[in-house]
Every structure is written in C-alpha cells, then in structure tokens.
C-alpha cells in the first residue's frame, strides 16, 4: 500500500444509537436527583475548579448522559468537592454525592 500521508477517520459525532448509559444508570440508581439536572450551568458558573480548568458539573452530567465517558475523568479530576454547586443548584441536585459516585463508577469494571 502506498503511503498516503493521511488516514481515513470514523466520524466524531455523538452516536445515541450506541449510547453508553451504564454510568448514567448507576448514578441515577444511587442518587435520583442526578436526573433532575436542567443543564442551566449555575454549577459551572460558581465552580472553583472551573477557574483553573474546564471543570463544569453541567458538562460532566451532559457527557455522562450522552455516554461520552472518555472526557469525564479529566474534568471531575479537578473538582475540590467544595460544594458551592450544591448551594446554587436550582434543582437541588446532590452534587457532591454525584461527583463521588462518578469517581466510583469510573473505577468500576463496567466502565
């Protein structure tokens, strides 16, 4: 095969047909308030970690519910668990528990 100097790539879109929900379901089971999120971004706006990283719980929740797990780890890794997000959340999501659950889920064999 000649060296083409480029390669064909699979498309980069979110594919909801092979949507990976295991982590979403795990968190939903252990903390139902997780699925109340309306992605308003209050959490991201107040996030301390957000000031030195891309961390935003809104984004993390989105990624998880769309099964885009690969990007989650390096986002929540910046979380300081300070809990400000919990105080500003208009839907009373138990954010600190959610984050610990995400950490746990990412460690579990299923992911």
């Amino acid at each position: 095969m000649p060296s083409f100097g480029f390669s064909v790539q699979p498309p980069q879109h979110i594919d909801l047909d092979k949507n990976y929900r295991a982590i979403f379901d795990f968190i939903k089971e252990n903390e139902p308030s997780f699925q109340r999120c309306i992605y308003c971004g209050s959490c991201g706006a107040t996030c301390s970690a957000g000031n030195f990283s891309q961390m935003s719980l809104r984004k993390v929740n989105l990624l998880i519910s769309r099964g885009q797990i690969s990007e989650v780890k390096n986002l929540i890794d910046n979380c300081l668990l300070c809990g400000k997000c919990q105080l500003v959340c208009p839907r009373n999501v138990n954010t600190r528990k959610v984050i610990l659950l995400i950490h746990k889920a990412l460690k579990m064999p299923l992911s």
Partner: protein
Amino acid sequence: MNRGKQLIWQNYQKEIADDHFFYVRSCIRQNFFPGAEATFLRILKDVLQKDVYDDPDHTTCTGIGYHTDIVPLETTMTVVARQFALMTEKGYSHFIPSCVTSFGMYLEILESWHNHPEVLEQVRKYLKEATGRSFELPANIVHASDIIYKFRSEIAQKAKYRLINRYTGQPLRVVEHIGCHYAKMFPHKSVGGAEFPRVLAGIIEEWGGEVIDYPERRHCCGFGFRQYFIKANRGYTFSSVKKKLDSMQPYSPDLIVTNCPGCNVFLDKGQYVISEQEGIVYDENGYGIPVLSSEELAGLVLGFDPWDIGLQVHQVSVEPLLDKMGVEYEPEKKYLGKENIPLGRPLQPTVLKTI
C-alpha cells in the same frame, strides 16, 4: 414515484433556455475527464442540433482559488465579469458552466450584484480598466446537468440503451450525488431544490433507472478545497467519501451518477484509497461502484463508444456496469491511444479489482 417529493419539486422549477449556449469549461473536468466535456458538446451539437459556443479565450473562473481563500472576492468577481463579457461579445446570453463550483459561484456573485448594485458598478469599472471590456448579465444561467435534464426525454428517445439490468430485467439501482454548490446555496436556482434535487433523479428515472435515497445522500463528497489540496488535511476528504459509501452500501447500488467534476473524482478515487487503507470494496464482486457524470451517462445511453466518452480514465472499472446495461464495447481497445497506439495498461491496485 413519491407523492411528497412531487409536491416539493413543483416549487423548484426553473427556466432553462433551449438553444444558443455559451459554454465555459471546468478546470477539474478538463484535467480529469476531458472526454465528458467532449461528450456533452457532441450531444448538444450532433444529437440535439443545438448551437453552442466553446470560446478559446475564456479562462478559469478562479473558483478553486476563491474557495481556498487565496483570491479575493473582487478579483473573482472581475474574472467572472470577463467571462460574461466574452459571452456578450460573442452575442450569447445563455451561459452554461461545466463546473458546479463555478455555477454556484456565478449565482452567488449575481446575487451579490443584485443586492449591492454599487458592487456591480465597481466591477464594471475594474473590468473596463483591466481589459477595456464591458458586459451584460446572462439572461439564463444553468448548469450542464440542467441542460441534460431539460432534454432527458429527447435523449431517451434517441437512446440505444436503458438503465435496465439485462440479466434480471430490473432497473439499475442508481445513487445520485449532487455537487453541494448546485443547490445548497440557492435552492430556487436549481431543479428540485436542495433537499430532494430532481436534476439527476429526473434523468435517471427517465432513462429507466431506479433512484435510491440513502441516509448520507446530501453529504458533501469531501472535496473541501483546501482540505483536499493540502495533504495534511486530506483525511477530511476521504473520511467523507467513506461515510457516503458506507451509508449507500446496504442498497447495493449499480452506479453513482454525479453532476459535479470534483465529486466525480473523489467518489471514484476514494474507493481506491479506502480499499488500500481499510481493505473495503463496496460491491460484492470487488470492483467497486462505477462513478459517472451526467454527461458520460448520457453519452453511454446514446450508445457512444465508452472509450470515446473516456470511461477508461476512471479508477473504478466500468465494465461490470456496461455488461449489466448490455453496452457493446471492445475491451482490448480500452487502453489504446489515438490510431490505436498501445499505451500499456495501469497497474492493479492491491485490493480493488480492475479490468
């Protein structure tokens, strides 16, 4: 035929002049498929007895330079103005570009001139200053494929072959690919609109084929100008081609027809690239899916010699298609030059089978 589509098509009918055409050529088509343009003119002149002018003085429209953003808008506009000037001087007003990118660009520029007359004036000044020429706007500007669409039934009547599989008696399964710039920018300047274009579908159905609709039908072939011309970006082009081919494969098409020179190149060469890189070939016999332009297809059904049309310069071998259609051809003449001088033959790709 689908009722809903008919309703849509009714909203996208455009006027197509029926004689006295000023023809401008396509850079890509001339380089890659010179036979296609020859065929088109032959059909217009010999088969349909139309008056068409092929001007030696016209140049590129700079379309590719424009879309790779190295040529500024004013420059392109003035070059386009020059083409119009040539048309005006030769006493024509029906303008036919062979290239879809040019076609789209002409429409875009005419639109801008229409919305901003001051720009038109400026361009007239530029042209005068640069060349001393002046010009009229074309009364009718359509793409070569529109012409074939207009005369599809005349061609059908004179046709020697139909798009029918002679072994099964079933219509050939044909994929239509419309160049993005044909309708996506100005749906109302097209035949059938941007979502369900009629221009090729009409031809194919008229000539007995069955048009298949597949999920990525409207996706770009992936040319992307700077994306193809720079090697580092070229993955963009062939990833797009692959996406389209993957999406059409379940319908096992016999043929891809396109009205855009660029698309023709990439859908054809793309099958070679993917076969080399991924080991995938998109038909069960391993020959790939032939990709023809509307001009070439017209020539084929009219019974022109495939090697005059220039089907031998396609990477994907057309013989399986010719056999299905029952076209008579001389295999041994495929790679001969003028006066049958032997020119050797191309190498075999590793995966993709060729004849």
